[in-house]
């Protein structure tokens, strides 16, 4: 362990400075005095520089290190000083770590970002301004530092202390001993010194809240971890294919969580009460054939699965005050349950909660993965952050090494290419090809949308053979095939265009696929809400839309199975047997994730019309997990393109939030606010729009009495009033703008700090070189003195500048 030396370097001032005390305001005087010093020094430096450079050239041939010499050529005294530099001791000495954490604990406890300078006496990172060039004369023993840290730890709350302990880079045995020593008997709370009274009270309250939330979060996390299945499966996938493919399966798990939450709310507030109080069925229930599983019609029609089954009255109405024509079912102790209101508000609240959760996780992921200046430093990041430690199989490990090698070669080639820019002609050609391919892909998307439109119109116009349920499956099949085939076409087209960066290729592919899916979904939404509502007047159009969405989900699943079968299994067999290639097909992460997002969008679109759709999606996701896992392990290999797993997870969450969820929310809002619900079925059959149910209830509340009059007031002046919405939007925009400005300012500060670090580094090198030259000269003089004079020499005088002159 390096022991800090008590060393005093005596550098007397030049004769010109003695007696003078130049103030910074007397600039000319200050400059003059320094100028003399600098002149003298530069003369000596010139002499030394030649000598030392010669010596250096013997040791290393590189021209880069004109400033920094390797440590082998430095004297032992310099090395000893260097070893006790504060920045060196952090890594090596436990004492330094302990002191650093002591400081952090002190700061945390006092809750100030910069403790007072006077309190720095105990610091083990001595500030030179305190010690006047003395390097830590009060060299504290490690045990003392440890006892200081223990004392600080004792005054923290338990959860905070544990958090601090876990984050310390000490060995486990030391952490355990620290923990042992810092345990106080229960019931003691060390009060904080300093400002008491109200401040410490609300500080304590805030701490208590933070700790309670923290422990709640930890408890939830451990509960979730206990619930999460597939730990071994995920480990195997990660071990064989790396973090990139694993991100797909983790995304699948996230979607499962969202759907489970949605289903929970819907079952609790909509389906449960309706199942407990079933309405009278319109006619005899149809016989169940096997086709229901695919079409969703037939014997599924008049069940809790679809909107049409739900009653529009208040359930469990107590006898004596029959409202809305409901039946009088005398039940003791039952609460009346307003079904239309419950339906509307449950769907609304569940969407709201999903929105909040999505936006929060997206913002969190965004905050983690995007940093200011994160685009630079790609070589360093590739070298240090691209080895995936999860990979555990020999073949996967070798593949990873090959990938990294390829990536490094590509980076070097890219760098060399940047230094030799392409000609204008080449760039024009590149731009033309790019533009053409984009045009073709957009044309494909538009063509698919037109095809869907034409086909759906055809389905409306044709007499539709009402008895044939199988005819209902044709539209979903066509849409599914288009969804499957068009991305392959775009991938083939993308092979034509030149791309400098492989990451950009992936983003562009995702973008095109997304545009295609959005176009198709947009056409379908228009078809349902625009055309089908008109065509199905007098019938239950909501049931029909719900069934359509069910069919789309099921068909999507079936086609995914077929695609996995043919795209992966058959392709692998073909490539191994016929083409005799050793390479298995790659697992296309982007395309698979977009398919998941597409399925989830369909679910969200259909929640209003078919409350049981999240359950169908959950079953589908479970099956997809096992199918994809089996196919992956048997048929595929890891992608050879580098994959920024963290960026990609953020991109996936963003895509889930912005086009997918937002689109579904817009669809829902339009359906609730603008479309007239059918008059023969569902909870809103007597109303003009679904939103009226809320208004009816508010009017009912107004009539109910003065006790709940604040609710109608809130509704009239805050919800229905557009001015309030504008105000809130304007405030939000202002906050966003302010945040953007803050980030811009921080970016400037980062640039300045980088420059400062660079300058400090140069200063440090300069000082070390000077130190080295001083010691060299001292040694040389000693040697010459011992060599020439035989008699006992006087102790060598400390070096002064006068001898240089």
């Amino acid at each position, binding site marked *: 362990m390096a022991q800090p030396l008590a060393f005093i370097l005596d550098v007397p001032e030049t004769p010109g400075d003695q007696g003078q005390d130049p103030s910074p305001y007397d600039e000319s005087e200050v400059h003059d005095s320094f100028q003399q010093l600098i002149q003298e020094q530069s003369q000596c430096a010139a002499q030394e520089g030649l000598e030392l450079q010669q010596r250096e050239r013997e040791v290393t041939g590189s021209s880069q290190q004109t400033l920094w010499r390797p440590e082998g050529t430095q004297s032992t005294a310099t090395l000893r000083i260097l070893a006790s530099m504060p920045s060196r001791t952090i890594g090596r000495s436990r004492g330094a770590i302990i002191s650093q954490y002591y400081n952090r604990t002190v700061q945390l406890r006092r809750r100030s970002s910069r403790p007072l300078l006077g309190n720095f006496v105990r610091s083990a990172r001595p500030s030179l301004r305190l010690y006047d060039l003395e390097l830590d004369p009060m060299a504290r023993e490690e045990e003392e530092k440890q006892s200081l840290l223990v004392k600080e730890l004792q005054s923290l709350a338990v959860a905070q202390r544990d958090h601090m302990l876990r984050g310390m880079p000490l060995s486990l045995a030391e952490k355990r001993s620290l*923990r042992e020593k810092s345990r106080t008997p229960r019931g003691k709370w060390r009060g904080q010194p300093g400002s008491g009274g109200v401040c410490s009270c609300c500080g304590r309250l805030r701490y208590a809240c933070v700790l309670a939330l923290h422990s709640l979060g930890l408890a939830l996390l451990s509960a979730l971890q206990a619930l999460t299945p597939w730990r071994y499966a995920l480990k195997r996938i990660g071990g064989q294919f790396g973090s990139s493919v694993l991100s797909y399966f983790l995304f699948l798990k996230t979607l499962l969580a969202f759907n489970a939450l949605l289903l929970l709310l819907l079952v609790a507030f909509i389906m449960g009460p309706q199942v407990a109080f079933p309405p009278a069925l319109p006619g005899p229930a149809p016989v169940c054939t096997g086709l229901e599983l695919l079409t969703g019609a037939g014997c599924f029609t008049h069940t809790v699965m679809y909107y049409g089954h739900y009653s529009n009255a208040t359930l469990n109405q107590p006898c004596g005050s029959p409202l809305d024509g409901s039946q009088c079912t005398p039940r003791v102790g039952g609460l009346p349950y307003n079904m239309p209101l419950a339906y509307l508000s449950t769907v609304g609240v569940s969407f709201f909660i999903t929105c909040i959760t999505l936006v929060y996780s997206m913002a969190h992921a965004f905050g983690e993965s995007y940093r200011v200046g994160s685009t630079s430093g790609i070589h360093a990041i590739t070298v240090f952050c691209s080895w995936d*430690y999860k990979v555990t199989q020999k073949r996967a490990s070798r593949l990873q090494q090959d990938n990294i090698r390829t990536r490094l070669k590509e980076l070097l080639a890219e760098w060399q290419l940047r230094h030799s820019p392409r000609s204008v002609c080449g760039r024009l050609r590149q731009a033309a090809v790019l533009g053409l391919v984009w045009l073709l892909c957009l044309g494909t998307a538009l063509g698919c949308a037109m095809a869907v439109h034409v086909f759906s119109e055809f389905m409306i116009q044709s007499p539709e053979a009402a008895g044939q349920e199988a005819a209902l499956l044709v539209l979903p099949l066509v849409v599914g095939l288009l969804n499957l085939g068009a991305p392959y076409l775009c991938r083939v087209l993308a092979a034509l265009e030149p791309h400098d960066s492989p990451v950009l290729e992936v983003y562009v592919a995702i973008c095109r696929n997304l545009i295609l899916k959005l176009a198709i979904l947009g056409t379908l939404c228009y078809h349902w809400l625009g055309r089908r509502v008109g065509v199905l007047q007098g019938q239950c159009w909501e049931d029909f839309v719900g069934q359509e969405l069910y069919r789309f989900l099921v068909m999507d699943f079936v086609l995914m199975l077929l695609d996995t079968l043919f795209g992966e299994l058959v392709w692998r067999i073909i490539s191994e047997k016929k083409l005799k290639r050793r390479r298995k097909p790659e697992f296309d992460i982007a395309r698979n994730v977009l398919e998941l997002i597409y399925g989830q969008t369909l679910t969200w679109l259909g929640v209003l019309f078919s409350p049981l759709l999240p359950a169908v999606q959950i079953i589908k996701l479970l099956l997809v997990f096992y199918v994809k896992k089996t196919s992956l392990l048997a048929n595929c290999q890891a992608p050879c393109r580098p994959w920024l797993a963290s960026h990609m997870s953020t991109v996936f969450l963003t895509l889930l939030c912005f086009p997918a969820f937002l689109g579904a929310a817009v669809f829902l809002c339009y359906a609730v606010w603008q479309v007239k619900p059918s008059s023969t079925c569902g909870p809103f059959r007597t109303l003009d729009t679904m939103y009226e149910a809320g208004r009816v209830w508010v009017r009912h509340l107004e009539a109910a009495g003065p006790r709940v009059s604040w609710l109608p007031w809130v509704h009239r002046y805050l919800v229905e009033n557009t001015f309030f919405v504008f105000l809130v939007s304007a405030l939000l925009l202002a906050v966003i703008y302010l945040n953007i400005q803050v980030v811009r300012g921080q970016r400037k500060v980062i640039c300045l700090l980088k420059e400062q670090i660079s300058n400090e580094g140069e200063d440090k090198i300069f000082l070390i070189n000077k130190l080295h030259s001083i010691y060299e000269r001292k040694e040389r003089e000693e040697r010459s003195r011992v060599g020439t004079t035989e008699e006992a020499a006087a102790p060598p005088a400390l070096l002064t500048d006068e001898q240089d002159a």
Partner: protein
Amino acid sequence: MGNKQTVFTHEQLEAYQDCTFFTRKEIMRVFYRYQDLAPQLVPLDYTTCPDVKVPYELIGSMPELKDNPFRQRIAQVFSEDGDGHMTLDNFLDMFSVMSEMAPRDLKAYYAFKIYDFNNDDYICAWDLEQTVTKLTRGELSAEEVSLVCEKVLDEADGDHDGRLSLEDFQNMILRAPDFLSTFHIRI
């Protein structure tokens, strides 16, 4: 399940829980993996805190580590005497730091020590060359390796002293969000 275990005392298990990122169940799982490495050497009763070290050869043959080119460095960094032979505490520490829950700073600290092959608290050009060689299985030419090292130093070296200090490394890691997901071993 945890109530019936006889390997650790209640206090020991609590201490492990507080000082690592593992839950009770995970600690037991890690212990059984450790025990499986050397069943004759590791006793099933740790209440008396026996002083047992599993030699590096067995640690390096674990399925999680055996194909990792940095396994020797990992074992050296986390072992007590820097020789790769690990006690149970070292073993738990290693997997706790490499687990999902460990914060970025802690992982960056240990990653720095792993990539510092000559243990001089700096990642110098020689350390970088060793790292790049191990990463690419020696299949890059010497010129390419030195070019890569030069670019890495250009990008990450803040104070321009020709090598990476811990601060430089941590600053660079801050800009790489993938680090948390790649510097992770599941057990």
